């Protein structure tokens, strides 16, 4: 294993209270992301706590999704994308050449904007991750992992009788919970969610939000959202991004009641963005 990398505590704009209560899971320092000529993220530094929900908000194109995808190196798949700076998860640099990106992505699960179950059965959707990582020695263990994951995602009772039905046949909200179950099945430490409710109706959204709230007991969750209400409802920390920089970062209740920055206030109150 690599030697742990430590950073000085972030002081921008001021250390959130919640950071004092929980250990830092992800630490980013001076992260720059370029898409070809476009400078998408400019020298971003942030600490993300474990066992809490951190929400990234900001207008479209501000770099919040880009930063999210940088955390599990999903941006590697984009040929023109270049990433600079350091991101450390549990003291381990994710750009360390010795680090296996596949293992990183197993540790850092991801839920996407649009529900994207594999066009396979519900069971196969959840079982795929554990299978390729060799988590289960036999069918019974695999069954157990699938059941646990579906239970954690709050989907078990709805699908337990039709595990062999295609995952694409579920409703949008169920599909998204299936994707969450799929992410949980590989036993990650961090779950990244890129606008997970933007394609869902309010009832399905409420279910997902409940689920996120439950999952926060065990996982470090980072969620990108366009909905200020959602950020306020589910997150403990909120980071406001604008034009590729982190404008303000703090406890959610403080951010929404007493933002330090004018730009944050304008955005939250709907004056721009």
């Amino acid at each position, binding site marked *: 294993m690599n030697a742990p990398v430590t950073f000085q505590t972030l002081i921008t704009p001021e250390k959130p209270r919640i950071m004092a209560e929980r250990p830092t899971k992800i630490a980013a320092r001076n992260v720059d992301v370029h898409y070809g000529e476009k400078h998408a993220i400019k020298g971003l530094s942030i600490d993300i706590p474990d066992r809490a929900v951190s929400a990234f908000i900001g207008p479209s194109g501000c770099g919040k999704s880009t930063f999210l995808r940088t955390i*599990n190196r*999903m941006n590697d*798949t984009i*040929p023109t994308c270049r990433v600079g700076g350091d991101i450390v998860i549990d003291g381990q640099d994710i750009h360390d050449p010795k680090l296996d990106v*596949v*293992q990183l*992505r*197993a540790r850092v*699960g*991801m*839920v*996407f904007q*649009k529900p*994207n*179950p*594999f*066009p396979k059965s519900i069971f196969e959707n959840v079982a*795929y*991750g554990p299978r*390729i*990582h060799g988590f289960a020695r036999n069918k019974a263990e695999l069954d157990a992992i699938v059941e646990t994951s579906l239970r954690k995602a709050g989907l078990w009772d709805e699908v337990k009788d039709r595990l062999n039905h295609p995952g*694409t046949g579920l409703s949008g909200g169920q599909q998204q919970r299936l*994707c969450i179950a*799929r*992410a949980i*099945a*590989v036993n990650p430490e961090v779950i990244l969610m890129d606008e997970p409710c933007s394609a869902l109706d309010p009832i399905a959204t409420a279910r997902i939000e409940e689920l996120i709230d439950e999952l926060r007991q065990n996982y470090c969750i980072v969620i990108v959202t366009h909905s200020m209400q959602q950020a306020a409802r589910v997150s403990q920390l909120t980071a406001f991004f604008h034009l590729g920089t982190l404008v303000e970062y703090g406890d959610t209740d403080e951010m929404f009641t007493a933002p330090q920055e004018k730009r944050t206030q304008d955005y939250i109150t709907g004056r721009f963005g």
Partner: protein
Amino acid sequence: MTEIRRDFIAKRYAAERRFRFYGAAALALTALFLAILLVDTVWKGLPAFTEHRVLLDVTLDAKEFDAAKPQAGDYDTLMKEAFRAEFPSVKGRVEKKALNALLSSGAGDDLRSMVISDPSLIGQMVKAPALLSDDSDLYLKGFQTEVSFAPGNAMLRVAPLDGEEGFLLTGDVAEQPLALAVGQVVRFEGGALRIAKLESGHAVAEALGKLEADQLTLQPGQWDIATFSVPEQDRRIKDQQVLWLETLKAEGRIEQGFAWRFFTDGDSREPELAGIRGALVGSLLTVAVALVLALPLGIAAALYLEQFAPKNRWTDLIEVNINNLAAVPSIIFGLLGLAVFLNFFGLPRSAPVVGGLVLALLVLPTIIIASRAALKAVPPSITEAALGVGASHQQAVFHHVLPLALPGIMTGTILGLARAFGETAPLLMIGMVAFIADVPEGFTSAATVLPVQVFLWSDLPELAFQSKTAAAIIVLLVVLFILNAAAIYLRKRFERRW
């Protein structure tokens, strides 16, 4: 409220109606041409699927036929002699030749296979079918001439002409015109006469073959008149041959059956013996080689280009050239095959393996382009989902992208193969256009393919090959329809929606 210009709206609707009409008209015209093509081909080709045989009683003499080696016997001569025995009155050399011409040169084939499957027939009297020649067959299918018989209901005297060939026909009353016409044939027990000249009260006729008696008097009912719709000089079958066939037909000795040999035999110079088997097997072998080579290569190339290759100038160049290759005329591939596979590598001429290599090159760009399109059509969210749970790029491709793209790849491949199946030009260059009578036994034996067979037969002068050509086209079309149906089925069956 805005004022609605009624004339504008009327114009708009008129334009829409006109456009719909153009579309429907184009469709109707296309359907019409297609229907004409299909109906014409089927109409011309259907007769080739049946054949006529004459049933003959033959005795398989145990002295001449060996039960241990039943395939060695001279069945053709046996059948020919049995056939000649049916017409004992036929004597002259020319007449005998004309009679023999009614039978196919492979007339003994059916008897041979009968005996091979059951050698106990040797020493017995057997009723065996003898294949008729192409001209007899065409006549019996009604392609050469129509013939109608009318009973002779007057007395007719026949006497030889003085000093020259021919006979004089007179009625019972002198100077009364005979109810006959030039070209008609008077048939009676013991011979037949064709009217050559008609004058008032008498007619001059020439004998078909030899008459049993020179001078005779035919009572009403003892003779009849055969009228031919096509004069003898305009057809291949002679009047006398028609009469022989009609005699056999009247005796119920001629049977019409499905021409299985069309599907079981190779090519032949004799139309009635020519079959499609050699070309069909050749086509299957050739396309099999093409498939085995082109499918894995095509999918691998498409996968690499679409999923793994770095996007740079070289891959761009390769991509452009693959698209260019798809547009290269197929004969160029034939020349390439001739120069490289035959002349440089010294592979056998006319062989399915070379044809397959050439066709593989031909369909490779098509398969690559179709496969790339199918791979591209898989939404990137599926790849992301797989990567998101920690699959490697290769796992994502092989576990998710490729299976989802496979129906599209299969469709493209089958359509590519359908093209290969119908390809003629490049195969001409590598010698698959030779006359090959044997059904190919392997990938290196000389062979031809269906479309080339169509090309070869269409060039032959025998009338019977016209319908063989059309029949070969029908077989080719049926195979292509099956391939296309398979493509559609695969697409429908495995198509996923997301």
